[in-house]
C-alpha cells in the first residue's frame, strides 16, 4: 500500500522499520524453534524411538498381544458410542441456538463449554459420586444389578463428558455465521423440516462437522484421567489403550508401553494432518476462528 503513496526507497525503509533486524529475527526464530523442539518434537520422536528400541520383532510382539487388542477394541467401542452421541447433541444444540432467538441462549452456550474447564479427574469423580457404590444412585443400582462404575457404561459416560463441547462449539458459531435465509427459503418453498436439514443445512456445515468430529474422536480415544477414575483397571474388561499404557509402564514393560503409546501417537499425527488439511483447504467453510 505504501508503494502507491511513496517511492520504493521510502517503502523499503518503512518495511525495514516495521520489522526486526535480521539478527533479532533469526534469534527469535531460533529461540521459538528450540522451545518447540524441546517441549513438543522431542517427546513425539522419543515415543517411536522407545517403541522400536527392541527392534521390530519385539514391537510387533507387544502390539499383537491379546491384552493390547482387547484395549484397542474397547477404545474403538467407547469412541464409537461417545462420538455419535455428541454429534447428535451438537447438531441439535447448534440448530436451536443458531436458528432461533430465545431467552437464556447465552447461558446455554456457556454451559455447553463447561466440561472444558473441569479437570479430567473431576470429570470421572462426578460419575463415581452419582453411580459408585457410595454414590447417590449406588444402592438403587445395586438392587437392580446394574453396574456403571468399573464398567464400560462408566467409561462411555466419562468420555462423553470430556468430549461434550467439541462438536457443538464448532457448529454453533459456523451456523450462526451462515444465518437463516437458506433454511427459511426452503421452508417457504414447501420443504419439510427434515428435508431442509438434510439438503440445506447439513451440506453447509459438513466440513465444520467433520472438523469437530476429528477433535472429538482424538480426545475420546486418548482420554486418560477421567476414564482412569471410573475404570477400576480391570484387564481385558475396562482397560482402554491409554490405561493399558499406564499398566504396562508401571509393570516396567517399557517397550510394551511405548508400543501401545506409539499407536496413540500415530492417531495424534493423523488427526493433526487431517485437521491442518481441513484448515488449509476448507478454512472458509469452518467457523471464524479456524481460518488460516
Amino acid at each position, binding site marked *: 500500500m505504501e508503494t502507491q503513496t511513496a517511492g520504493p526507497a521510502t517503502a523499503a525503509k518503512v518495511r525495514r522499520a516495521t520489522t526486526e533486524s535480521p539478527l533479532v529475527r533469526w534469534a527469535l526464530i531460533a*529461540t521459538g524453534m528450540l522451545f518447540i523442539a524441546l517441549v513438543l518434537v522431542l517427546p513425539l520422536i522419543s515415543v517411536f524411538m522407545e517403541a522400536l528400541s527392541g527392534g521390530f520383532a519385539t514391537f510387533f510382539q507387544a502390539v499383537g498381544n491379546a491384552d493390547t487388542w482387547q484395549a484397542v477394541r474397547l477404545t474403538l467401542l467407547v469412541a464409537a458410542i461417545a462420538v455419535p452421541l455428541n454429534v447428535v447433541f451438537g447438531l441439535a444444540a447448534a440448530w436451536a441456538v443458531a436458528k432461533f432467538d430465545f431467552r437464556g441462549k447465552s447461558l446455554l452456550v456457556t454451559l455447553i463449554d463447561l466440561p472444558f474447564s473441569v479437570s479430567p479427574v473431576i470429570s470421572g469423580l*462426578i460419575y463415581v459420586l452419582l453411580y459408585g457404590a457410595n454414590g447417590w444412585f449406588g444402592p438403587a443400582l445395586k438392587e437392580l444389578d446394574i453396574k456403571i462404575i468399573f464398567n464400560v457404561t462408566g467409561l462411555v459416560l466419562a468420555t462423553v463428558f470430556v468430549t461434550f463441547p467439541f462438536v457443538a462449539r464448532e457448529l454453533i458459531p459456523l451456523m450462526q455465521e451462515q444465518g437463516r435465509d437458506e433454511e427459511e427459503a426452503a421452508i417457504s418453498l414447501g420443504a419439510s423440516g427434515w428435508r431442509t436439514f438434510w439438503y440445506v443445512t447439513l451440506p453447509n456445515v459438513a466440513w465444520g462437522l467433520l472438523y469437530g468430529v476429528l477433535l472429538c474422536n482424538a480426545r475420546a480415544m486418548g482420554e*486418560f484421567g477421567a476414564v482412569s477414575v471410573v475404570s477400576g483397571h480391570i484387564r481385558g474388561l475396562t482397560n482402554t489403550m491409554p490405561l493399558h499404557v499406564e499398566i504396562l509402564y508401571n509393570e516396567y514393560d517399557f517397550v510394551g508401553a511405548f508400543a501401545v503409546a506409539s499407536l496413540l501417537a500415530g492417531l495424534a499425527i493423523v488427526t493433526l494432518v487431517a485437521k491442518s488439511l481441513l484448515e488449509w483447504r476448507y478454512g472458509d467453510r469452518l467457523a471464524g476462528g479456524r481460518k488460516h
Partner: protein
Amino acid sequence: MTALATSLSGGFKRPSVLPGFGLTLGFAVAYLSIIVLLPLSALVLRPATLGISGFLGVLMDSRVLAALRLSFGAAFIAAVVNAFFGLIVAWVLVRYDFPFKRIVDALVDLPFALPTAVAGISLATIYAPNGWVGSLFKPLGIEIAFTPLGVLVALIFIGLPFVVRSLQPVLQDLDKEVEEAAVSLGASRWQTFRLVILPAILPALLTGFALAFARAVGEYGSVIFIAGNMPLVSEIAPLLIVIKLEQFDYAGAAAIGVIMLAASFLILLLINLVQRWSRRHEEH
C-alpha cells in the same frame, strides 16, 4: 398460528418460520442436564455431608495443602513460561517466513491431540536422569523428572497451544499502519513493540495465560508419570482426589474437587472480564 405459539411460549422465543425448536432445544437441554449438570451438582453437594468443620478439616490437612500449593504454583509458573515462549512462537509464525513453518504451525496443536498418558511416559523418559535431556542437566546437579521440576515440564507441554492459539489471530489482525505511524514519529522498534504492539495483544496474551493456567491446574495424565508423586513434595491435587477415591473417601475427594472447580470458574470469569474489557476498549 405464530400468535398462538408466542402466547404459548410467553415471549420466551421470538416467532420463526423454521421448525424443530422444541425438539432440538428440548433434547439439548435434557442431554446437557444428564451428562453435565446433574453430575456436577453431585460434586457440589457431596462435601455438604462433611459440614463446614469437616470440609475445612479436609483442606487444612498438610498433605492436601501441599498438593494444592504444588498444583496451583506449578501451573502458574508454567503459564508464565508459556506466555513468554508462546508469544515468541506466535510472533515468528505470524511475522516471519522460515523453512517448515507450516509443519511447526500444525505441530503446536500436538498437546491437544496427543493423549496425556503418552505425553507423560515420553516426558518422564526424556527428562529422567539417564534420558536425552535429563542427562544434560544431571552433571549440573539438577534433576528434573521425579521432582516438582518434572511437574513443571509436563504443565509447560500441555499449556503451550493455549497461548499460541490465543495470540495468533490477534497478531494477524494487527494494523501495520499503526506501527508505521509509530516509526514515522521516531519510535525505535523496541518502543513500538512495548508501547504500541504489546498493549494491543495484551488481552489475548492474558486470555492464553489464563487458559493455560486453568488447564494446568487440573492436569493429571501427563504429570503423574514424571512427578514421582512423593507426598508433600511432588504430589498434585488431582492425584490426591484419586487416592481419596481409592480409600472410598468420596466426600474428601469431592471437597478437593470443589475447591479446584471453584478456582477454574474464577479463572473463567476473569477471562470473560478481560475479553469484555478489551472489546469495550476497541470500540472507543
